[in-house]
């Protein structure tokens, strides 16, 4: 949408860094502050930034809404599937100890899978929200009588 060259160049440098930071937060989450929710939001922010700089069409080409829906669903299934795996391996629901022969490794594996599921779902949902709202915004911006909602449009974008 924006034709500003500076923004686009800076964006090109910034977006990969944001993605890497999201992954850092994701994998650091096992030992320190971080985790799937935070990483998912940061990853989503990278995609939203891309969409703001390069337009809706480019963003939809890179990450289609259909893909986002798939990703969100797979994330939830991964989370739930990890829980159910605990049951199938003679443990309780969401018991990580039984996932591998060594309980400590099992705990590692369990939390990584769970957080991966959260990352997938949260980043997909956040991006999908941005897509939905911005698509609507463009529809309504063509509507001339936008007095009270012009505020809301700014808030949304």
């Amino acid at each position, binding site marked *: 949408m924006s034709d500003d060259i500076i923004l686009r160049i800076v964006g090109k440098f910034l977006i990969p860094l944001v993605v890497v930071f999201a992954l850092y937060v994701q994998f650091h989450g096992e*030992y*320190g*502050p971080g985790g799937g*929710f935070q990483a998912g939001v940061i990853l989503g922010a990278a995609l939203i930034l891309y969409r703001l700089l390069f337009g809706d069409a480019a963003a939809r080409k890179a990450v289609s809404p259909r893909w986002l829906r798939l990703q969100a669903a797979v994330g939830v299934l991964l989370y739930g599937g990890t829980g159910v795996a605990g049951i199938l391996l003679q443990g309780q629901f969401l018991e990580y100890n039984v996932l591998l022969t060594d309980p400590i490794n099992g705990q590692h594996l369990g939390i990584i899978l769970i957080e991966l599921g959260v990352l997938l779902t*949260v980043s997909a949902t956040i991006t999908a*929200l941005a897509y*939905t*709202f911005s698509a*609507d915004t463009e529809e*309504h911006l063509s509507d001339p*009588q936008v007095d*009270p*909602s012009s*505020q*809301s449009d700014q*808030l*949304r974008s």
Partner: protein
Amino acid sequence: MDPQLYNYWLVILLMMTGLYALIARGNLIRKIIGLNIFQVSVFILYISAGFIREGAAPILSPNVDVYSNPLPHVLILTAIVVSVATTALGLALVIRIKAAFGSIDDDTLSYSSGDSATELSIKTQKSSQ
């Protein structure tokens, strides 16, 4: 007064601000903002309760004995997600309301159905807002 209790005054202040915005403002977007402020006040209430004097961040390390309580943080992470979902749904509804009614001012919105039976319900709705 104990300076560590100032948090709770902040909670009360934010809670009242949020509720005021919810009740007094007709603009639906402002209502959602009010709702968010109200919810944030509760988040701070929980987080403040997790504070433990001289407690370190709850990351296991050999030199630390006292940790702050991590459970409220985890709970509030969940509550934040719920709040994000509510806000998103609320905003989506506002967009549709704007498209359907041409306005997002609560005072000008009313149920349109020609049914006389609905009038009472509108009145009760208004008085509850």
